[in-house]
């Protein structure tokens, strides 16, 4: 197929911008493949695999932008390249208006705005630790979105932050709230009295959105990174964040969400919580402790009820009125081929929670693997995002996976999440619903079960997103916790018998 390419030397662009460009050009009639990537060795490899580069050919430099388009005709391919160049030049000019000077580094930014107090860092992992250390040494709190930061660097950064009484949120931190402002992937929630400490992102998004619906707002939401409670990092930032929230006058209650701490780290965390002077709710997903919330949904409800001065007793999901009939009618309506469950998640914490719930109800569930009766895939994991945007930013690759899953004869249920909020796709339900509708039109298909994380003030219309999914025949539950349990009941209705 005709191919056209161009290299724009010294033209660094961030990956989200390039993804948008590739999507835009890819929608042109007659264009079949588009690559818009920085010329790193890894990206060269991706282009080789896509047939957009040739073996043995030297790659461009890491600061050079490579454009490649495959189209029906050579003319169309050249045309698309020219359009891509125009798109990039336009956005560059738009980004650098006369009143909007962009400095080229942290020092330049601080010279122009010396009152700055927080750095958001989302540069490629290899450069992230150095930028974060520079920011800390300049007296800035750091939100570190970048992943692939070495654990030794993480420890060094956190020690530096603590010494300077600063926050180091991350690495791989997707979501935080500081004094009412949302950093990264956040839902629009009210300011309030709940202080949260969470590992990374979607768990925090799910709980603050739930609290928002229950009428409770957030004071701060501090992301500490998925490795903070590991033996290597020792809970450095969790303990520091607890100190911060303890002295914060806005915070009346603290919610701590994470995977369980390492056995070496747990005693220190327990001691800090024992001496903590405010009410707190702990949700270490997968830990067995009757004092802790078992699920994200329980954690949110527990916070809201404690604030009302009441105590929280979780309800038995399987005993709720009408559930048995709903499951029976869905099973009658759709004669699915199999009894397996496939979870296709954009949120890592939601994927992890679903896995725990399904394992408790159905037995073994494989994690990020191609084989297994019940499988959960965390599509935000590095292995699924090589050369592709994160599914929260671009729903298309997950839509494709949903189509494929619909043909899988071993599946009874496809379970998924939909994350709304700032920085997420504008219409994440649309492409997924189209794929599901098309698959269901072809005959027998699994049930589709989902939950939507969003609030009334998010940029997307949450009610409309739910409606789009329901119109495509998706069963939408009010929480990730309930969606996983409902999925289990669909493939194992006996769960509804002994309650």
């Amino acid at each position, binding site marked *: 197929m005709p191919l056209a390419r161009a290299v724009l030397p010294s033209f660094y662009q961030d990956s*989200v911008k390039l993804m948008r460009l590739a999507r835009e050009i890819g929608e042109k009639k007659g264009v079949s493949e588009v690559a818009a990537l920085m010329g790193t060795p890894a990206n060269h490899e991706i282009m080789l695999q896509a047939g957009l580069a040739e073996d043995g050919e030297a790659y461009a430099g890491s600061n050079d932008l490579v454009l490649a388009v495959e189209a029906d005709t050579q003319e169309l391919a050249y045309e698309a390249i020219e359009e891509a160049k125009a798109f990039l030049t336009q956005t560059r000019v738009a980004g650098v208006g006369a009143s909007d000077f*962009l400095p080229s580094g942290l020092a330049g930014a601080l010279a122009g*705005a010396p009152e700055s107090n927080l750095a958001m860092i*989302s540069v490629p992992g290899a450069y992230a630790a150095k930028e974060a250390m520079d920011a800390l040494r300049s007296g800035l709190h750091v939100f570190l979105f970048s992943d692939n930061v070495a654990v030794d660097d993480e420890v060094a950064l956190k020690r530096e932050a603590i010494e300077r009484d600063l926050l180091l949120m991350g690495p791989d931190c997707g979501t935080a709230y*500081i004094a009412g402002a949302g950093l990264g992937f956040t839902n629009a929630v009210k300011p309030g009295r709940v202080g949260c400490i969470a590992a990374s992102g979607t768990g925090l998004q799910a709980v603050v959105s739930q609290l928002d619906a229950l009428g409770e707002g957030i004071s701060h939401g501090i992301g500490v990174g998925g490795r903070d409670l590991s033996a290597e990092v020792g809970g450095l930032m969790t303990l520091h964040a607890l100190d911060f929230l303890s002295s914060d006058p806005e915070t009346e209650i603290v919610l701590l969400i994470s995977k369980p701490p390492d056995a070496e780290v747990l005693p220190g965390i327990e001691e800090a919580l024992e001496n903590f002077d405010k009410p707190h709710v702990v949700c270490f997903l997968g830990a067995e402790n009757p004092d802790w919330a078992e699920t994200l949904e329980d954690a949110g409800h527990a916070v809201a009820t404690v604030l009302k001065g009441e105590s929280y007793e979780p309800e038995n999901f399987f005993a709720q009125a009408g559930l048995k009939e709903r499951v029976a009618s869905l099973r009658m309506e759709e004669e699915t081929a199999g009894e397996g469950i496939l979870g296709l998640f954009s949120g890592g914490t939601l994927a992890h929670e679903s896995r725990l719930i399904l394992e408790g109800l159905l037995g073994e569930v494989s994690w990020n693997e191609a084989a297994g009766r019940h499988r959960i895939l965390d599509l935000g994991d590095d292995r699924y995002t090589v050369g592709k945007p994160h599914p929260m930013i671009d729903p298309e690759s997950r839509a494709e996976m949903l189509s494929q899953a619909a043909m899988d004869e071993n599946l009874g249920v496809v379970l998924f999440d939909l994350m709304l909020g700032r920085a997420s796709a504008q219409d994440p339900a649309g492409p997924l619903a189209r794929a599901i509708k098309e698959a269901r039109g072809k005959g027998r298909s699994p049930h589709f079960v989902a939950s939507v994380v969003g609030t009334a003030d998010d940029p997307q219309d949450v009610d409309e997103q739910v409606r789009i999914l329901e119109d495509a025949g998706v069963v939408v539950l009010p929480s990730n916790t309930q969606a996983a349990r409902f999925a289990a009941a669909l493939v194992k209705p006996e769960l509804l018998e002994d309650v």
Partner: protein
Amino acid sequence: MKDLRRKPLRVVNLGLEIFADELKTQNVPVTHVRWRPPAGGKPHLLEILEKLEELDR
């Protein structure tokens, strides 16, 4: 960390421009840095730069 309570949030953004845009929609002042890999993204040059910076300190 008390400064976060005393002073309004003011952000420097290095990396994805979308994060700066999202802060602007919340009326949080932000300076977006036109970041690019230092030393032209060449690992050996970067190493030399880092050593020079260490010496500087």
